[in-house]
């Protein structure tokens, strides 16, 4: 079993350890803004545990995924600032 997985964040290939959650890949990609608020402010994760909805991203075309509760999978496509 490989010990790392490669996925893409905003089109850039990112490699993370197996079992890492999506914010790991987003951080390695150098991205801190996950989404824009209703008045256009940049936002990133707050609670880290699926409560606050601030870490919402688009994963494989599905909007509003709470990235802090999603494990990175090979080939996964993550889009921020949705």
């Amino acid at each position, binding site marked *: 079993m490989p010990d790392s997985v490669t996925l893409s964040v905003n089109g850039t290939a990112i490699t*993370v*350890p197996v*079992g*890492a*959650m999506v*914010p*790991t890949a987003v*951080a*390695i990609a150098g991205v*801190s*803004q*996950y989404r824009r*608020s*209703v*008045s256009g*402010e*940049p*936002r*990133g*994760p*707050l*609670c*880290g*545990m*699926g*409560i*606050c*909805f*601030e870490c*919402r991203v688009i994963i494989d075309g599905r909007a*509003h995924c709470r990235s*802090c*509760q*999603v*494990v990175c999978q090979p080939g996964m496509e993550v889009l921020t600032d949705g």
Partner: protein
Amino acid sequence: MADRDYDVVVVGAGPAGLAAACRAAECGRMVAMLDDNPHPGGQIWRAAAGKSPNAAARWVQAAERLGVEWIAGARVFDAPEPQRLAVEMVDEECHVRYRSLILATGARERFLPFPGWTLPNAMGAGGLQALAKSGMPVAGKKIVIAGSGPLLLAVARYMRSHDADVCLIAEQADQSKLLRFVLRLAGHPAKLIQALTLRAGLLGVPYITSCWPVSAQGGERLQSVTLRRGDGTTWTESCDYLACGFGLVPNLELAALLGCRTSKAGVPVDEYQQTSVAGVYSAGEATGIGGLELSLMEGEIAGYAAGGSPDRAQAHFGARESHRRFAAALEEAFALRQELRNLPQPGTLVCRCEDVTMERVRACAGWREAKLHTRCGMGPCQGRICGGAVEFLLGWQSESVRPPILPVRVRSMTE
């Protein structure tokens, strides 16, 4: 929609949920354990359960051995009829039936709004730790840890052990209150005073009491945090992350939906951890913030009681009492100071989902008016974040819970 049927269903797979599930299964019951996270262990044991040997791994392995059915990524969003829960998973929905239910839904951090708290990289203390535990690299990052409670020390230690540069820990509580707490509990106060006040110092990290953040600065992301001491002096620290939480608040939404009596401190339970609704039990932080040992103890009692072995539950009553006394002393020591009510400025956002400012919320008479007039608490988190703040800042209690208690797919509602 598929139906699943169990004797005992446990919602939440942290320490309380794991202990409850194991004990109920030991009593010969068919048990299912649900959690919205991909792995069991809850926040405190996040990512630890895979690394044996430790307590987390032992409980997870025991649950497997005892035949507890583990349902991962499961979000309970409705209770459409008695003894039935509607659950959304990653790619499907199901109904889960139970004869007894154990709510081990845990707690979340209390966040208080101050200018700049919404900037990316300004996070919860537990929030940053959760992300670091799930793989986010923190080595070499400058981190300011602030807020209140023993969690701040645990986060500092974790960050240091992962080579982060922890600038300081700002604890809002007074030194004198913390010392009184230690003196009350300790037979050897001198040693314990050292343990508490120097624990972080021994690691080379300043632990500053009577100190709290007043603003965070940055553009697209956090760049610095301004802190204030009790004597009124302020200074600014540059940093990559702010890890800031003002204690914990219990997750009560599901208990309220089921009609259980709740208070702001948690779900009231009887000596067998049963709520005001027969057959519905609660254990762990959901019943009041008490820490790991108390959560395990309450989980065991709830599991035995729900499993039909009240005599085995009784054996743990004494130990639970002593842990509860400790929890009460802890709560008193880390009570939030009144000055923190002045943290938000008129233009500071209180509701991050709907971007509602403090002045707009404060102009309302209560929750109902705030929701109707400003949409405060009406966004995706449904008031889970601003609720704890508004309770402290304005004294408002959240009034009602309506299904779905979480945003779900339309398909989950219609099938």
